[in-house]
């Protein structure tokens, strides 16, 4: 009997089973799923709609056209569209953070030990967490964008439905990177408190020191430096270019993809190395 197992087993066996286990927890529990969407919706609704920035610009000064000013600073005519797109990155940030926490749960509840006692490769254990976080985020991205369109998101003049694929691609890369990062932070923990504190310490600055709510070019220099290394900024920029900007800057878009792609590659590699070292203490 055992011979059958060995012959038909690939290096990646268990990958889908473990990924699906993560996803199942979520699609079998619609409440949980709704809760993760509430936060970006609140942000969109409250911040995106209350900050009617274009109304600040006086209309009675000759030679000053509010539409042009908005487009020059935000790349789009209304602030709502600008920040709604920022919510996509924010959701990815929180979803990947939970994937990090789930490692701690699995350890505390004995599931991790159970899996580690099977022939499943340690890399697969990590990758399944990463993959499920990425898949979740991509699904949530779709929902958020649909809601945003309903709320009045204005698509760019040259928007092509194929651009959606680009959005998914960059969100996928971002999530692979972020969730590898969070898993690397939690891989050794047996308790919730420490990684939770560290993640909160990372998450808020990461969200605000990015162009999610406000364009980087209007920020002070020191902050701009941070924003310019933050992978979230590149993701936001790419998603904006693909969805709401009227004329796409292809060079900038290529840079966005390259940056986020390399970020994902490096952090995921580090995550794998750490998992090899620390899963078996």
């Amino acid at each position: 009997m055992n011979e059958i197992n060995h012959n038909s087993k690939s290096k990646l066996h268990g990958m889908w089973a473990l990924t699906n286990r993560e996803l199942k927890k979520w699609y079998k529990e619609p409440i949980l799923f709704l809760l993760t969407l509430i936060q970006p919706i609140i942000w969109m609704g409250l911040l995106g709609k209350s900050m009617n920035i274009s109304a600040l610009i006086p209309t009675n000064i000759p030679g000053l056209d509010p539409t042009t000013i908005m487009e020059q600073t935000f790349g789009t005519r209304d602030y709502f569209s600008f920040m709604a797109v920022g919510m996509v990155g924010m959701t990815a940030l929180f979803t990947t953070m939970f994937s990090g926490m789930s490692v701690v749960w699995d350890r505390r509840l004995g599931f991790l030990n159970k899996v580690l006692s099977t022939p499943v490769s340690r890399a697969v254990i990590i990758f399944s967490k990463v993959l499920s976080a990425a898949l979740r985020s991509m699904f949530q991205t779709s929902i958020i964008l649909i809601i945003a369109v309903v709320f009045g998101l204005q698509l760019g003049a040259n928007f092509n439905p194929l651009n959606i694929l680009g959005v998914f691609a960059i969100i996928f890369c971002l999530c692979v990177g972020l969730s590898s990062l969070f898993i690397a932070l939690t891989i050794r923990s047996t308790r919730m408190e420490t990684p939770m504190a560290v993640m909160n310490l990372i998450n808020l600055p990461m969200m605000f020191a990015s162009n999610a709510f406000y364009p980087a070019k209007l920020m002070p220099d020191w902050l701009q430096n941070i924003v310019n290394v933050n992978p979230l900024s590149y993701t936001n920029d790419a998603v904006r270019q693909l969805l709401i900007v009227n004329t796409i800057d292809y060079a900038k878009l290529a840079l966005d993809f390259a940056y986020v792609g390399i970020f994902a590659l490096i952090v995921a590699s580090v995550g794998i190395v750490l998992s090899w070292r620390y899963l078996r203490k």
Partner: protein
Amino acid sequence: MSEEIIRAEGLTKVFNKHLTAVDHVNFSVKHGEIFGFLGPNGAGKTTTINMLITILKPTEGTASVLGFDIAKQDENVRNVIGLVPQEYTADEDLTGLENLLLCADLYGIPRSFAKERALDLLNLVELTDFKDKRVQTYSGGMRRRLELACGLINRPKVLFLDEPTLGLDVQTRTATWEYIRKLKKEFGMTLFMTTHYLEEADALCDRVAIIDHGKIVVIGSPEELKHNLGGDLITLAIKENEDVSGLIQNVEHVKEVQKEDGSYCIKAEFGEITMPFIIEALRKKGYTVTRLSLTEPTLNEVYLEYTGRSMRDAEESREANFARRITMRRARGG
């Protein structure tokens, strides 16, 4: 058969440079036996299992499972073992069958084949009627049986059971022992188990290693261990007001006789067999036995003898405690 299935030599685990959880233990487990680690909470039982199943790296020493070195051939080890952990690891939101199929996937067992196997196992542990119910609705005993089935999905040659009846009530515990015996017979496996229940070690194990503070203090079959204590205690009284100590002393296997206010305390080997001989010897001389009792030593006395105290609970880390509490709660079906 006396083929060695597990062999540990000087196996040691030190946590955080100063906490020696397992301290140079040596033992071997023979083919087809149930070998048990008996010790209080925090004695180092789980840590030993975790090293044998290649989850923890030993700080010192070596061990092999079916001839595979746990440090150098850990993948081979993982292919031939099964684990029933101390915790309940089945997914609460999935059904019993779905959980077994997930386990099968972790071993890379093809789906077509896995389903048949899973149904077989569910039948063996008598969960067929509940296979499509969420684990959430299972009682403690049912959960344990599901974990047993899950540990057997890859037809392991060695099954590791960590405190298989922790938190279960006495009745369910006894029933679980039956399942374990049945499964062992069905699959002809070797079992390595841990427990802190004395009766469990006594009822289930062919050989027991008593572990305390990470050290093995004695190894032997429960009978041997109890026997080595010097035998059973027989108490009797006779109608006549005479001292018959000498007479009793002459019966074979009697080791010691003490007279205490009209009754005799006799230490004897093989109490059940020796007792009739004592009565016979007394009757022949015309004495009438009015009161008689036999007390066999339990593993508790063995434990007391070797560690100098009753089973006590050692200090446990917060994490170990947390996992234990959850296990206990689920055992009660919560």
